[in-house]
């Protein structure tokens, strides 16, 4: 029979652990709420920008009538030799399989593009660590977004030398996910577009956790360049939550009071932007507008990926901590049972000893 003192000590230790996981869950829930609000707040801008672009697509001559080739380089399909992959994971652990799932999806994607040159920009410490163990770093690194002290990134980018391998890491961005704003997304978009313009890369993909709400998340690989259809996501691979994950996420959300709605009234207002049935006066020609708006579209997509991934990370951590807490509770219950049995057994044994001692007299 186990020692009662030992069991009691173990119970105390599990109770302490449960206190920690419970606190972490509350913290994650609070962070999730903030991240969710930011994601929502970013939506009207994205919707409006997309709407304007869509209406411009109809008005402007985007395709050359003679060759059928798009006039804008960001729309042009080139043969895919060099690929840029942006991987968005978390900076911190204790979030279940959150980052592992992303890196797994990234590996699958890399395999599917075997034989091509792939540059990787890693966002988040977990993904960076994973990739570092497998792939070499490029000779010239893009400046980390974490060091971006001013939004005016007016430095010229160093020339890329020889490749370090067919798959190489060209940039690491660690520690930005806790606190970032649009300027980081824009800086990354600008560097991506520059490389695309210089034909250093022929296409750009992002792997990240999409977050519509706590119960509507999926892990996707999205193509952001070239832009296939404005306003439509070009999802290359996607992986939905399993039923079990959804159930757990829902339970965790309910117990922390997180809402599950994914629409806000502002979205509906945004939908109407630039779609009024009137003849607008265009201060600039539609072509010119289109040209300057398209790069912004890339920026907002990267921004969205960062925001949603950050929200998804908090949601994953909240869910993980919720199950850790309930596991701890289960463990305390079963340990208490074992302890009570042991105590009872001890008492019984003592009584028997006394009774049989008395009988022997």
């Amino acid at each position, binding site marked *: 029979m186990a020692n009662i003192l030992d069991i009691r000590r173990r119970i105390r230790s599990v109770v302490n652990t449960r206190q920690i996981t419970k606190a972490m869950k509350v913290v994650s829930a609070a962070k999730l709420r903030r991240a969710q609000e930011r994601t929502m707040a970013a939506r009207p801008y*994205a919707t409006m920008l997309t709407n304007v672009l869509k209406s411009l697509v109809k008005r402007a001559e985007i395709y050359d009538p003679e060759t059928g080739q798009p006039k804008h380089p960001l729309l042009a399909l080139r043969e895919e030799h060099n690929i840029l992959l942006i991987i968005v994971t978390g900076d911190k652990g204790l979030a279940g399989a959150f980052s592992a799932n992303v890196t797994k999806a990234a590996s699958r994607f890399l395999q599917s593009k075997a034989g091509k040159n792939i540059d990787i920009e890693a966002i988040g410490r977990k993904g960076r660590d994973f990739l570092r163990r497998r792939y070499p770093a490029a000779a010239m690194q893009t400046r980390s977004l974490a060091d971006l002290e001013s939004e005016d990134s007016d430095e010229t980018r160093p020339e890329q030398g020889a490749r370090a391998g067919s798959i190489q890491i060209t940039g690491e961005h660690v520690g930005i996910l806790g606190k970032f704003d649009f300027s980081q997304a824009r800086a990354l978009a600008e560097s991506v577009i520059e490389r695309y313009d210089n034909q250093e890369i022929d296409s750009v993909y992002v792997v990240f956790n999409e977050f519509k709400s706590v119960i509507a998340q999926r892990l996707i690989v999205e193509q952001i360049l070239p832009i296939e259809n404005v306003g439509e996501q070009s999802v290359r691979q996607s992986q939905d939550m399993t039923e079990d994950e959804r159930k757990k996420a829902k339970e965790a959300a309910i117990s922390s009071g997180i809402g599950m709605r994914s629409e806000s009234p502002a979205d509906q207002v945004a939908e109407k932007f630039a779609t*009024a049935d009137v003849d607008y006066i265009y201060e600039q020609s539609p072509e010119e507008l289109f040209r300057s*708006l398209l790069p912004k579209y890339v920026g907002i997509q990267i921004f969205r990926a960062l925001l949603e991934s950050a929200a998804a990370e908090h949601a994953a951590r909240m869910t993980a901590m919720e199950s850790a807490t309930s596991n701890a509770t289960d463990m305390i219950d079963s340990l208490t049972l074992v302890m009570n049995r042991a105590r009872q057994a001890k008492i019984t044994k003592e009584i028997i000893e006394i009774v049989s001692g008395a009988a022997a007299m």
Partner: protein
Amino acid sequence: MPDTFQLEIVTPEKKVVDTAAAEVQIPGKNGYLGILPGHAPLITELSVGEIKYRDGGEEQWLAVAWGFAEVLPDKVTILAETAERPNEIDVERARKSKQRAEQRLTSGDTNVDVERSLNALHKAETRLEVAENK
């Protein structure tokens, strides 16, 4: 005709302004535009500059860096990458940014991206100007 229109200024971060305004001045790419209620429908790109609007009696200022505006007779919607009120502007940072841009422009180095540096300079100067209207 009503004497105000709805003014909305939206950035990727949030909705900065949502109010009834009697007048707004926006930095169009081809020059500043003054807009009063009942303006003809118009779409324009914005450059770096100041937005000035009046809601009630007071004049409000905002510094914007690149944006886009849709004007309708009863509504003006502005999409801006950044839109900052005077008290949100980090004057120290703008000053440093201005210095850096000036240094680059006068350095004589051929590697300097003149357009970008000019843009940075312009942004910093606009911020400083708007900040003075606190």
